[in-house]
């Protein structure tokens, strides 16, 4: 897999991946990641919105045979999370016992390392979700 020249490819999404910047159209439809055209009503008047990062698990799995590049992390939980603003986001769960994961489980966003490339490669960071730290 190509490494060094992919820096720009990952860096161009750092605002979404570090701060959960989504889109909100003039009619109030919220989506993530931000698009130039609202996927619900087609409006092109879309503003940025920073999502709270609080949500609930709507489905999950334990990835045991991951795509190459993620072997080091296996097995890891992956989930669909419905954020409190409405959009659903796919992300890994972290700091959780797989046995504890359940439908409707409350989670919050946290910035974590997603994966690293070898030696001269880059390290990717992004959002994962965990049970809320109180």
């Amino acid at each position, binding site marked *: 897999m190509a490494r060094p020249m992919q820096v720009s490819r990952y860096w161009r999404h750092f605002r979404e991946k570090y701060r959960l910047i989504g889109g909100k159209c003039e009619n109030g439809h919220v989506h993530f990641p931000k698009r130039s055209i609202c996927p619900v009503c087609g409006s092109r008047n879309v503003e940025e919105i920073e999502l709270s990062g609080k949500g609930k698990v709507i489905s999950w*799995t334990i990835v045991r*045979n991951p795509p190459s590049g993620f072997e080091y992390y296996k097995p890891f939980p*992956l989930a669909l999370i419905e954020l409190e603003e409405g959009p659903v986001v796919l992300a890994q769960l972290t700091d959780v016992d797989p046995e504890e994961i359940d439908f409707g489980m409350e989670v919050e966003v946290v910035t974590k390392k997603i994966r690293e490339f070898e030696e001269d490669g880059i390290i990717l960071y992004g959002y994962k979700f965990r049970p809320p730290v109180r």
Partner: protein
Amino acid sequence: MRKAVIIGAGMTPVGEHWKLGLRDLAVEALLNAMDDAGIDRVDSLYVGNMVSGPFVEQENLGALIADWAGLGNIPAVKIEAACASGGAAVQEGVKAVLSGLEDVVAVVGVEKMTDAWPSDATRYLAYAADAEWELFHGASFVALNALIMRYYMKAYGYTEEDLALFAVNAHANGAKNPYAMFKRPIKVETVLKSPYVADPLKLFDASPVCDGAASVIITTPEKAEELGVPKEKWVEVAGMGRAIDTISLASREDLLTLKAAKVAAERAYKMAGVEAKDIDFFEVHDAFTVMAALSLEALGAAKKGEGAKLAKEGQIAIDADYPIQTMGGLKARGHPVGATGVYQTVEAVLQLRGEAPSQVPDAEIGLTQNIGGTGSNITVNVFRRV
């Protein structure tokens, strides 16, 4: 409007073809189809293929295959729609014939997957998902389908045993198909005892990584007559539809509705002038057992939430009301991704000619449904006996 008929069909066995490359498989299937039709030239070639670049470092498949099949300086291109590439290639071939631009068209679907390391194969297949928002997080294709499977079981109260019935049915039919990868019947316990790949999805809920190629020859009834192809070989392409849905699963309006299949099926039914109840057999895209259930619902064979009920009630067997996967489906015949839609087409042709190894009695109308992505790009074709 012109009509399109399939006059030739051919394939290679599905399996791990260590001695054959992508071009060998494609050429073998193509020549089988041309021999079946009794012709030695075509006007153009459409190649269904999903990921030949990463898998075997070969693109430009139109030129490669037409060249090696000795077809001369014809137009030839690759059609890509993820795992629905084969179904889409058949449709492009039919469109060329219906438009009047081309009279005799060859379609070949091919995929060579076993030359890659398994975790790399998992990565390449995930290219059908959203690279920045799904694969970035380590989502395999199996994992995405597992998310759907868990949600489906929860929503309607199905168990892993219930969904395993789709795999059991596929293997029962595949056992009779000489071209299938797995020619062994299995039991529910076989599925349940297989290891989790992405919980609750097990190895036997999923179709295998494999190699294969299938091909059909499409023309008009007039041309078929002129070429002297006996009428009992003809199968009409009566209807087709194709639609997309959101590429990433998280953006889906409803995780449990294959909207693209629904829209595609409506178009195909309308064009063919039929309804779901007229279909004698369904070749659905059971890359994962839950997809067979969702497909039956989207195609109108079952109500929403009742796809798996059809399996529980024994309605999906060859001699039942809704036979599916008559030659093993993706699960037992095998799923060489970009070739699958063409395999489904070849199998529908054999059923409608009455030549299938496990024959649906008096089959007159059959349907193939080919899913790309997690339901993001779907083709539906309806075929009729002439």
